[in-house]
């Protein structure tokens, strides 16, 4: 098992060109010979950036879940809904598949993403003996599901314009929706700044 970093090679993050990692002069940063992006063996500051985005994501989960995300006013009556109360209303109305879908996209996915990234970060930093293959699988799932959290926000934007019927019915977006949008952005940034190769680096010395 030979890895690129042991061979003194680096894969460009942007164009995936494999090349020798050389600096033009000390103190200067190495650049990709093909696309000119900065060349690094691993994403720079990966752990620190991922921690930052993940913790910020956890913090933003609080306003996203406690402030109302939308208000439905029907014939003059109506009250603001948070993410959770919206899911409850859907379940009470018997729309179980939609209730489950919104619950998964808006609450389960962001939480799983943030908790999963925390686990990966701790596993890398504390050298936990977790299966590298399974950690990589978890990272791929985290990377894949992240964008589906936008579901609720897109739906609100559809409803806000669709149900704009003056005194009969209106739907408006609440501050929770903006907070939730921030959570989604932060979780995507966190997943993008994590370098999965760090998971495998823990095994490298023994394999070589």
């Amino acid at each position: 098992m030979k890895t690129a970093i042991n061979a003194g090679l680096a894969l460009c993050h942007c164009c995936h060109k494999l090349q020798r990692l050389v600096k033009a002069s000390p103190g200067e940063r190495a650049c990709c010979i093909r696309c000119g992006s900065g060349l690094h063996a691993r994403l720079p500051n990966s752990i620190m950036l991922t921690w930052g985005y993940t913790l910020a994501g956890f913090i933003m989960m609080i306003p996203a879940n406690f402030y109302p995300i939308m208000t439905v006013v029907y014939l003059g009556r109506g009250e603001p809904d948070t993410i959770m109360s919206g899911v409850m209303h859907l379940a009470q109305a018997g729309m179980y598949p939609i209730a489950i879908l919104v619950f998964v996209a808006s609450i389960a996915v962001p939480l799983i993403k943030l908790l999963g990234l925390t686990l990966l970060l701790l596993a890398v930093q504390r050298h936990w003996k977790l299966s590298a293959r399974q950690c990589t699988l978890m990272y791929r799932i985290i990377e894949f599901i992240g964008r589906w959290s936008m579901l609720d926000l897109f739906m609100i934007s559809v409803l806000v314009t669709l149900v704009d019927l003056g005194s009969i019915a209106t739907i408006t977006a609440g501050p929770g929706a903006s907070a939730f949008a921030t959570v989604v952005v932060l979780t995507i940034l966190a997943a993008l700044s994590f370098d999965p190769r760090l998971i495998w680096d823990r095994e490298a010395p023994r394999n070589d």
Partner: protein
Amino acid sequence: MSLSAAASNRLHACHDCDLLVNLAGLSVNSRAKCPRCGALLAHKKFDSINRTLALSLTALLLFIPAATLPVMTIKLLGHANANTMLNGVVQLLNSGSWWMAFMVAFCSLIVPLLLLLLLFTTCLFSRFYLFPKIQIVLLKSHHHLKHWGMLDVYMLSLLVAIIKMKDLGDLQMGTGLYAFIVLMLLMVYAQQQFDSHECWDRLEGRSA
């Protein structure tokens, strides 16, 4: 350099675990997977550039009806209101949720449009070996933007909105919805057919 150009072209490093893999003799329409972590390392596609060109051009043309024609119309107590993808964003802006309006516009309109334009121009230039400097910029932009295009998520949220609203009033599907469904499918297919590795390799073959 100790590695000859030919040898380093066949040698590839896994982007998920950094293992060096020899990709020599990969035939068209075949996939190469990393033996250590299972990541998809290369997928040579048949006629990728021409197909991406055709798909992205069709999708670009469909963008106009999909974004401007009414997606659906709701009738409630004699009042009717239609929603289009564009006025969904405008409405959010007017109600003061500028951050959410930006996110919705960014992920459902701006990035998909940019991605289609990038796919089209990259493949066009690559097809005829034009403007290598511009191609690098285009390919790099595509790499950074591809995570933020979310037409498929938007599609699902339209579906959820339809199911949620069908009990509230009389809901009619508009032409925009059908245009959007086709656009979404074309977009996913174009992204899947696009092979950035091939474009980079062609670029290199020319400039070397």
